[in-house]
């Protein structure tokens, strides 16, 4: 790193700018840029400030204990991290959860997708200086977080899905509350957000034709998620390789043609609309039945079984502490809020996995900083950063 930067030391025209880790726009991250006048001639992201070694720690944990661990990669997007790992584990164990559990999983994933996108909007808003558009999405996350809290019992880190099903059933009167929250968020999204932010001429001036990612480049760089779909590529793991209840649900892939910062934000708006549509379908067509695979239903204590039949809270069977999936190697792909998430697990039939590899969407999008910001203006850096919706802990793991 040092040699490459000091090479151009004699070039007096440029100054070297270290942005972060203590910087209002850097997050948990550092950027090393070279500025010539008002243009970044070179821009290098320097990740790794939140590296906690989740993959390595996973080798020292029992299979069930990894569920909360992989969530910590992106606690904003905990449900999607969770479902990715659980699907891989179920492939190893060769069990299939009952349909009601599949629907509940999908429900939580979509709620989480909305809250995650709203968080991204808030960060994008404060990056270009709109304090109101930081506060509004954060305010509108709260009804949805309350909904998720009703199901799971936690604000962000749900640990809701377990191998074979989910931990709890829906509480009483859930549907009415969820519909109210959806109506509220839909109204705000379609009217107020557009009037104060997306249609605001200042926002358009900051975002349109800034940080353009062409279709070919997006495919060449292996970009995933909304950033890919904003460059006119219709690729969504939920459609390509459906999991959970997605094959039975009807929704469209959100995409835009331009590939600039504005398109990246509009894709997320459209995705929120699609998620609302999915949640409505799930609430209408939720199948009856158990929420856990019948193999595990028999294994809990009698007292816990009574509670499960009465309140819908399924206690974990004691066998989970000594879970030993057969030896093998699996891969699971899911569409997290920021893009495609891959889990690759190698099991040797022990109490703990031999190797857990997670490829997170933020990590695959990090190359965008270098591609888009090199050559952009200094004031375009926060606009592009906000539009990429990059979450450092997810990338560093």
């Amino acid at each position, binding site marked *: 790193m040092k040699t490459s930067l000091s090479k151009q030391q004699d070039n007096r025209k440029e100054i070297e700018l270290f942005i972060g880790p203590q910087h209002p726009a850097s997050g948990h991250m550092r950027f090393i840029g070279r500025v010539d006048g008002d243009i970044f001639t070179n821009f290098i992201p320097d990740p790794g400030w939140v590296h906690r070694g989740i993959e390595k720690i996973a080798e020292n944990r029992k299979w069930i204990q990894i569920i909360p661990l992989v969530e910590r990669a992106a606690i904003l997007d905990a449900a999607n991290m969770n479902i990715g790992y659980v699907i891989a584990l179920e492939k190893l164990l060769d069990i299939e959860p009952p349909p009601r559990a599949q629907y509940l999983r999908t429900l939580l994933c979509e709620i989480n997708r909305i809250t995650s996108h709203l968080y991204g909007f808030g960060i994008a808003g404060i990056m270009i200086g709109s304090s109101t558009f930081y506060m509004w999405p954060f305010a509108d996350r709260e009804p949805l977080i309350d909904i998720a809290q009703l199901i799971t019992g936690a604000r962000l880190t749900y640990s809701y899905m377990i191998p074979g099903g989910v931990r709890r059933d829906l509480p009483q009167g859930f549907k009415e509350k969820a519909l109210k929250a959806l109506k509220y968020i839909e109204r705000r999204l379609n009217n107020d957000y557009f009037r104060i932010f997306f249609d*605001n001429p*200042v926002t358009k001036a900051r975002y349109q034709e800034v940080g353009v990612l062409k279709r070919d480049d997006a495919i060449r760089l292996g970009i995933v998620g909304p950033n890919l779909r904003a460059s006119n590529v219709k690729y969504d793991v939920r459609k390509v390789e459906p999991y959970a209840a997605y094959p039975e649900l009807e929704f469209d892939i959100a995409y835009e043609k331009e590939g600039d910062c504005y398109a990246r934000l509009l894709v997320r708006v459209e995705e929120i609309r699609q998620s609302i549509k999915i949640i409505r379908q799930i609430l209408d067509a939720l199948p009856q039945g158990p929420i856990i695979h019948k193999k595990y239903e028999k294994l809990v204590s009698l007292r816990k079984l009574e509670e499960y039949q009465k309140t819908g809270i399924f206690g974990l069977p004691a066998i989970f502490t000594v879970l030993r999936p057969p030896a093998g190697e699996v891969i699971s792909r899911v569409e997290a809020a920021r893009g495609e998430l891959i889990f690759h697990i190698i099991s040797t039939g022990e109490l703990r996995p031999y190797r857990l590899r997670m490829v997170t969407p933020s990590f695959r999008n990090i190359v965008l900083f270098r591609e888009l910001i090199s050559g952009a203006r200094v004031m375009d850096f926060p606009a592009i950063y906000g539009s990429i919706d990059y979450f450092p802990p997810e990338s560093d793991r």
Partner: protein
Amino acid sequence: MEIVDLILNILLHPSIFVPLIFPGFITILIIIILLIWAERKVAAKIQMRIGPLYVTRRFGGILQLLADLLRYMFAEVITSKDSDKFIFIASPIVALTATLLPLAVIPAGSLLGIELIALRTNISLLAALALSSLTPIFIIIMGWASNNKFALMGSLREGHLMISYEVPLYLSALSVAILHGSLDIVDIVNNQQRVWTVLINPFAAFSFFISVIMSTSRFPFEITESDSELVAGPYTEYSSILYGLVMGVPYMRLYVFTLLFVDLFLGGWYPLIDGFSSITLIIKVLIILLFSVFLRSVYPRYRLDQAIRIGWHILFTLSLISITLSLLIIGWVM
């Protein structure tokens, strides 16, 4: 009793009363405390929350800025090793003083029968504008003396912006002077007894107002100290009471310019009776101030090149149009 009379006479003499009490130092302090509180409260209301509250619970947290000031006062003053220490410490103080200088020539109506103008000249408009252009220079010096890359870049931005807002500012003020045939602000205000300038020449008012917003780094032109890439712009290295001073500078500048704006375009202290005409003035000033801080909660900020383009393409054109308009009106009336 004679001593009391003497003190009162001295205090109520315009050349003491104006800089010290109204519209000078004490009024400015009160207005800034209220204005920053109002800015945070207005933003909070639009953002569906409450804003500062617990510092004085019964009065809605009105003393929030006082608490902040106290903290600044008792915090450690840090001057970094690489900075030019004398200039680093002196420039905020000088900038603050320079910001207040235009008040000497800006009339503020009359209170209790005293004409509130410290220095009556027949070129007061020119003097006010010339004195007001001192502050940006000291902001640039602050960034240079800090010896910090972010501060330096902030200063450069201030330099770029300064040129693009000052030309339309002066030209639109000039168009008002042409319209009223005088460079004396008192004459200009007295000319507006029947109809305000903003109704005759709205282009000049618009261009002047946007230039003011730009020069005091209000949103959407908060570019000099835009925190998302430059931390705090030229003020990055300033801590404790020095930061308290530099934080006050844009607000004081806003107040001074608003006073000028009201005098030039909104009929100054008319239409209230002579004795308390200042009250009309201050109400108008407060409304304009509130509107300018309200813009924070509506807008993101423009990019630097876009702001400069707005300055030269739109505001410059508008101010040229306003001068033409003033000339046409004068010619037509003549």
